[in-house]
């Protein structure tokens, strides 16, 4: 277990906030301390209104990437909170609470020499995984990324990931980019080929990290379990507090309900009850 940093309210100036896709934005904010202490898979709760109306609550967003002076968030505009965020101009101050959650566990990779990190993402599930992939690449660890999306327009971060030296394969539902079909099938195919004859034996060469819609993670877990693969998934839930106080973000696990904000958002695949 890694030491958990204390949580803080950070008020940082927005240094940029721009569309990277028609409905996806990347926002960079000054937050040197957050940049220093936060890990891949952790998140912040972003305040969007002082008026207690729409939205009343903060929204959870993953730490997407870091630089010396701050962090960046990448988000899809889906409702009122993300809409307000997309309208924030450079120079305004953003109020976030963080770092929150456990983050991905990089030890299975770092502690076993030669192990390959498999990253499987559905839709904007790739957002928190980018930082993980980048971290591994900086240590020269082999990273295989599989990104799934509806269409070409929805594929995020493919180029940025390739730049880190990770190998990236894309699957789209309509075949407008990469393979036509499911990202789960793509990842499964790769692992099967890698393992060859020993497809059902316990794998010590690969370790999988995934994030995406629940249906996709469910399908992926079935395949990975069949292949006897170790994996951890980052999950999503509606959140009110983000700090373990409301018990609103529960998900079912083999040992009862767990809180996505406090016990997660990253869970061992085998502990999740789909």
């Amino acid at each position, binding site marked *: 277990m890694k030491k958990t940093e*204390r*949580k*803080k*309210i950070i008020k940082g100036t927005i240094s940029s906030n721009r569309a990277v896709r028609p409905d996806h934005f990347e926002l960079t904010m000054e937050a040197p301390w957050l940049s220093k202490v936060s890990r891949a898979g952790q998140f912040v709760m972003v*305040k969007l209104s002082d008026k*207690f*109306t*729409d*939205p*009343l*609550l*903060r929204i959870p967003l993953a730490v997407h990437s870091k630089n010396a002076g701050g962090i960046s968030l990448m988000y899809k505009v889906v409702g009122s909170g993300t809409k307000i965020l997309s309208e924030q101009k450079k120079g305004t101050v953003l109020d976030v*609470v963080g770092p929150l959650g456990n983050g991905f566990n990089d030890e299975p990779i770092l502690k076993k020499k030669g192990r390959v990190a498999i990253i499987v993402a559905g839709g904007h599930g790739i957002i928190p995984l980018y930082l993980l992939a980048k971290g591994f690449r900086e240590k020269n660890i082999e990273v295989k990324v599989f990104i799934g999306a509806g269409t070409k327009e929805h594929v995020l971060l493919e180029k940025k990931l390739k730049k880190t030296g990770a190998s990236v394969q894309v699957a789209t539902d309509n075949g407008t980019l990469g393979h036509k079909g499911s990202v789960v099938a793509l990842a499964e195919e790769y692992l099967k080929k890698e393992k060859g004859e020993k497809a059902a034996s316990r794998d010590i060469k690969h370790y999988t990290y995934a994030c995406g819609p629940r249906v996709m993670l469910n399908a992926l877990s079935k395949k990975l379990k069949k292949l006897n693969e170790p994996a951890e998934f980052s999950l999503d*839930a*509606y*959140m*009110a*507090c983000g*700090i*373990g*106080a*409301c*018990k*609103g*973000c*529960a*998900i*079912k696990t083999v040992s*009862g*309900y767990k809180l996505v904000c406090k016990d997660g958002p990253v869970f061992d695949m085998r502990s999740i009850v789909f």
Partner: protein
Amino acid sequence: MDLKTKIGGVIFKNPIWTASGTFGTGEEFRDFLNLDEIGAIVTKTVTLKAREGNAPPRIVETASGLLNSIGLENKGIGAFKKEDYSCLKKLQTKVIISIAGETKEEFEKCAALVADKNFPHAIELNLSCPNVIHPEAKHSLIAQDASLTEEMVKIVKKSAKCPVIAKLAPNVTDIAEIARGAENGGADAVSLVNTYMGLAVDVQSMKPVLGNRVGGLSGPAIKPLALKAVWDVYGKVKIPIIGIGGIMTGLDAVEFMLAGASAVEIGTANFTDPVIYKTILKEFKEYLKRKNIKSAKELVGKLR
């Protein structure tokens, strides 16, 4: 400036408290707040046995409000005492333990188990959680039945060694009648309101959004309703009223006290900002100063 409030013989350093289920045990907020500044911390409701809570999703934001169906997830009084009492006892403020049960027997046992040497400073009886089923109640909530409310308070008063606050539900025809029931049972105070029953609909799936289908509404959306509930009870009982519902600012707290509350509890606001308690207390003090009011008590029921 005198902020002290006396309820059931206990002196609280100020009349602004945190509401059950919205502040954990306080520990969750330690990184953000000086817990000792808080008038009182009301802990998340505990029950005799552990409860796993309702199926997710458990929360959804609605217009200026939050709909929840947590279902009283808690580890049970035994584990709660073992794991959390030592931290709670170290606090330099008052701690109110909220308890609930499905049956009279459970309430009785839980109330007896809660007590420890000079601890807690009070018990809040959650007679109004919309997310549990009470087999003994005619209605879905104990606090929808004045005589059952009276009976429950009586049972708990027998084993409690500290003041007992009865927390009431707003989904009733006449909340003053229920408050009188609590008073007749021997309650030292009533706190109101718990959440209002509500429903959120997902038009895509044509299903309720919450796993439990219905939930309890809290936040700014319910403030005028909660104020009216306090106003309706004020003057109808002799015991103090603790006002709860959508308090987001120091002035909201003032409004509740003017309507008749001797103290207030901050709920959903804690989620919007983990340091909001501090802001609310500051604004409350600033108001008293501006109005040249020497003692917070002077506000209670001033509304004409």
